[in-house]
């Protein structure tokens, strides 16, 4: 018990100390979080009328970011899997950072769930024994697997850190099986999220069995791309050294998953546009516009350009091996997939409506601020989690040891 309290206080003390850069970063995130809280208040008093959502386009940026972030959370498995299954040395050292990323991504997903709901005050209706849990609802399953993933990552991550902190050996008997469960679970969260969209014959844009694999392919490109960026930041700003081998392996994973994602997108385009049935209208709207309405066309093509350019750049040794320029294709892949899964997948599912009405989605300022704020909230948590984890990994936070501050 004494160990636990000292873990908490040492962790907090270490995390709260930092340089100006750290406080500037956290301060600006906090500002966005305050903005998010304000628009959340607006949404819960005026209603979702302050957003760009309508009865036709009943979900937009929120669901899009939710889906994307589930992918980022699942993407953490690209570190954990090589680390524990293939005993990759470089990955093993940073596996816990992946788990921290997963925790913050899942928390972001939860906040997006709140943001997109009409009545967040009634969320308890889903939770037994007070509420009703429906096994036939994909959203119910999604909430269940996401919470499970959060708990698994929390246990795995913090048990590992706890052992490092106290110096006790890790109890392999239950830790390793739990890690394997978490790996399989990572696939389940994104698969269930894909089913959430794909199990709707009403929406031909989503109604195909390629959705889960496409979700996983894009997730395993976007997730590790973000992880690479974070690793590069960590290498630059902390004493913690992430091995080149880890970053190189992640680069390979990003590249191949991005390739598969592009391939799947092109397959869909060919299948849908060759026959060009009514069911292709959503995709057609996305690519070229319908009835002269072309709101999503720039989004789609910019996503295509970003993804293909990133894919090509990953092939070039000058980008792949140069850790000063690796950020560029990573950011491009990340942005490209964010668009593809967001504006490029969720929104055209609503256009045209199931009975053929074509309307356009105009996200409001409130929505953008909410999205930014939730991302800021996620990065806020991520920074805290990573900072604490790095401190423990470096041995700067240790049971009985004097806590040493770093910037």
């Amino acid at each position, binding site marked *: 018990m004494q160990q636990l309290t000292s873990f908490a206080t040492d962790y*907090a*003390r270490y*995390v*709260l*100390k930092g340089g100006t850069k750290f*406080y500037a970063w*956290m301060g600006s995130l*906090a500002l966005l*979080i*305050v903005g998010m*809280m304000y628009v*959340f*208040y607006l*949404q*819960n*008093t*005026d209603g979702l009328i302050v957003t*760009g959502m*309508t*009865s*036709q*386009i009943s979900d937009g940026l929120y669901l899009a970011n939710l889906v994307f972030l589930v992918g980022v959370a699942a993407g953490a498995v690209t570190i954990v899997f090589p680390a524990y299954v293939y005993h990759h040395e470089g990955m093993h050292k940073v596996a816990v950072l992946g788990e921290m990323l997963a925790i913050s991504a899942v928390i972001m997903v939860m906040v997006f769930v*709140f943001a997109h709901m009409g*009545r*967040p*005050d009634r969320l308890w209706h889903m939770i037994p024994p007070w509420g009703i849990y429906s096994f036939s609802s994909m959203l119910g399953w999604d909430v269940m697997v996401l919470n499970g993933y959060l708990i698994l990552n929390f246990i795995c991550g913090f048990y590992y850190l706890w052992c490092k902190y106290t110096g006790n050996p890790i109890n392999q008997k239950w830790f390793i099986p739990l890690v394997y469960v978490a790996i399989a679970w990572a696939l389940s969260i994104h698969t269930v999220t894909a089913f959430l969209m794909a199990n709707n014959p009403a929406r031909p844009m989503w109604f195909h069995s390629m959705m889960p694999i496409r979700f996983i392919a894009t997730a395993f490109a976007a997730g590790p791309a973000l992880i690479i960026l974070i690793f590069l930041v960590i290498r630059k700003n902390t004493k913690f050294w992430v091995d080149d081998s880890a970053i190189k392996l992640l680069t390979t994973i990003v590249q191949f998953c991005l390739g598969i994602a592009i391939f799947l997108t092109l397959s869909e385009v060919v299948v849908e546009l060759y026959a060009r049935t009514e069911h292709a*209208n959503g995709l*057609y709207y996305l690519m*070229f*516009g*319908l*009835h*002269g*309405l072309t709101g999503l066309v720039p989004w789609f093509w910019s996503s295509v350009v970003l993804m293909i350019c990133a894919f090509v750049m990953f092939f070039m040794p000058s980008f792949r091996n140069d850790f000063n320029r690796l950020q560029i294709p990573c950011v491009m892949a990340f942005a490209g997939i964010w668009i593809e899964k967001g504006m490029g997948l969720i929104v055209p599912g609503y256009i045209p409506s199931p009975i053929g009405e*074509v*309307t*356009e*989605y*105009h996200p409001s300022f409130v929505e953008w601020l909410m999205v930014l704020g939730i991302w800021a*909230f996620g990065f806020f948590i991520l920074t*805290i989690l990573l900072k604490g984890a790095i401190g423990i990994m470096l041995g700067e936070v240790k049971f009985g040891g004097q806590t040493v501050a770093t910037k």
Partner: protein
Amino acid sequence: MKKLAIPTMILAFCCGMMTSALAQDSKAAAAQAPAAQPPQETVCFESRKGASEVTKRDLKPGWPNVKCSPKTGAALWYGDPYDGTVPMGKMPGLEKIPEGHAVIKPRTEKLALMPMCGVSCHNGVGPQFSPPTLPKGKKPVPLPTMEAMVPDLKDLQHGRGRIWCMDCHHTTKRNMLVDHFGDPVSFDQPQLLCGKCHGDKLRDWRDGIHGKRIGNFTSTGKKRWFTCTECHNPHNVQDGARNRGFVQLQPEASPQLPRGMKDASHEKLHPIAH
């Protein structure tokens, strides 16, 4: 000081979330238009313009017998479906319906010329031929007096020139219609006349497939039946060259444009640009 910064922020965040969640409906929008009660009585038409009408009145406070469209003047909603109705009377094929459960709105009251027809001009006199068909070799002669009173007669669009007035109107009792046997039929029961030719429609009407009924929906419930002439103009059933059974109407307002849409002109464009 700095130590406290982050916990404070977290606390503030949690509180903010809770406030938003608890503050449900605190800004209850009270955008309610002031009640504008027109002094004159509101009369709205039911199926087609110029046929049956209904006058608005309150059955109880806040519960009118009918609501009318401010845009078109059409009846939009019935509080009392049996307003101003009388029993339909005998109708072959409807014996199963309990007494008084089939009601109609009398047409006779609405027809301005009705009371005069039987007395002023056609006081029991008419062409003395039986059956009341036009004798061979004779053509019906348009009477300017009649045409002035009922403009639809100028271009009688019923039967395409193969029927004439006395096929429907009783020869001696001009305020009555006529059935197959030359017996008079009330203007309130035009179905007995129309069914002479339009048997299939009569059958569908009797079973509730054709035409309109309001009131109780169960097959034995009380219903107000709309008779043939409440929807169709007997002198111009096809609505002239349009050749449809129902006259044109002004439509009610179109739906609201969703947020962000300037107009609906895109609907008139082909989906695929070329």
